[in-house]
């Protein structure tokens, strides 16, 4: 499962826009993944320009 490191996230919204299942939202001006809708496709990991999302065990 993927988690976005809040202290690394710049809040640019790229992963929010590209998430195919709308599982990522802007919460307090940073991107946050809703684990209930995330399908683990990892597009957010691939597109993030600052490598904020990481795969948690």
């Amino acid at each position, binding site marked *: 499962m993927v988690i976005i490191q809040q202290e690394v996230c*710049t*809040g*640019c*919204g*790229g*992963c*929010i*826009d*590209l998430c*195919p299942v*709308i599982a990522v*939202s*802007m*919460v*307090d*001006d940073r991107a946050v993944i809703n684990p209930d809708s995330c399908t683990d496709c990892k*597009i957010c*990991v*691939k*597109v*993030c*320009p*600052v*490598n904020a999302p990481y795969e948690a065990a």
Partner: protein
Amino acid sequence: MSRKYDLVIVGAGPAGLMAARVAGENGLRTALLERKTAIARIRRIDGGILSPLNEYTFGQTVTFNPEVKRIGFPVCGFSIPYDGPYQNVYGFDMFSPGGTRITFGDREKQRQDPQKYRVGVSLDKELMLQGLLDEVEKAGVDIFPGINVTGIEKKSNSVLVTGNGEVFEGQFVIAADGVNSRTARLMGMNKQRKFFATHPECAWYFEDIEIPEIAGIGFVFTAYGNFYISQTCFKNHYHVGITSFTPTNEFPAKLNRFVYEDEIYSKWFKGGRKTDEVSCVINMLAPLQEPFKDNVLFIGDAAWLMEVTNVAAMCCGWKAANAVALAMIDGKMSKEGIAGYLEWWEQYFFGPYGQVEFKPFELQDFLEPGDIDYLGGLVTEPLIATMDFYKMVNTLGTTFGELFPVIQEQRPDVMERLMMVANQMDEAEEAAGKAGFPNR
């Protein structure tokens, strides 16, 4: 229960804020939805450059008048407040891996008469947005920060927009939610759009450095990536960024290399302080020819391939909200009611620029660093002064077209590789498309 409005605007950037101000001034009951909580705070890459000054892009131009603290839009006929710092912008510069340079604009001549020859000004964009936001509030618009729109649905006489468990109902919706517009995707607008590339960028803010070579935006081609440096509204402040036409996780390492280790360019950043990091992802889909469906009007970046510029975005917001106001007066709650916007869009945006060929490719995939140094050194006179990306690309094409006989004579090997670029553009485009995520 839904909240009922004449107009619901999604996105509070320059386009959405201007649309909201005009809608409020025209007496429309208006809701403005924004996913950020700090509306005027910029959390995404933005150079903060206001252009075109003394030229036209998308048929628009601006005037900047610090004496009266306003920015004027003489083609559309409105103005906005701005009382803050600025620096004149004179054009683009392009730098090769080894330090040769192509300059757009004759700096010496331009600096003698900035009013006449500047092609833009860098502004504090947060201050500009705050000025607009204040006017939106004064105009009686209901502003909803922190709303992530997740649904949009046409009813018989209205459109329902949902986000964060709330429902907003409008006679019309203006989608001003940017270059990767979720509204456009939810409405199925992206299904027919050609997809080019997923284009990420990352930039660092630097203070206490001086780069006299840059008087606007400088593009630097290196063997390991494409960078840009842009001048902010504060003296000795710059943004330095990296771009790519394919998603990558190498940006932080490459920026680090450019700023601290590059043989030629790291000297620009000596003694400087990195103060912030920003980023963006631009998903490049072909512009919308008809930016309208089921009473939703897509404006500014939401209907374009990439960013249309701050100025064009505000003009779109102004035109769109006026069109909705007229539709309400005329009682035509349909495409017919806002036809004036669609004609304007065709005239200034889609008609002249909508089908311009775009090829996502990296020069370095075809040319050696030494080739780029050689080509950069061939253009010794300044080219046309412009901040218009389309004009810049066209000018480069024409300039090098005229130099082909010289290149063929002096460096047939470089000419051969240049021809390869032309022949393999379609393959490069296909590769970029495959590496990206279409967002349909």
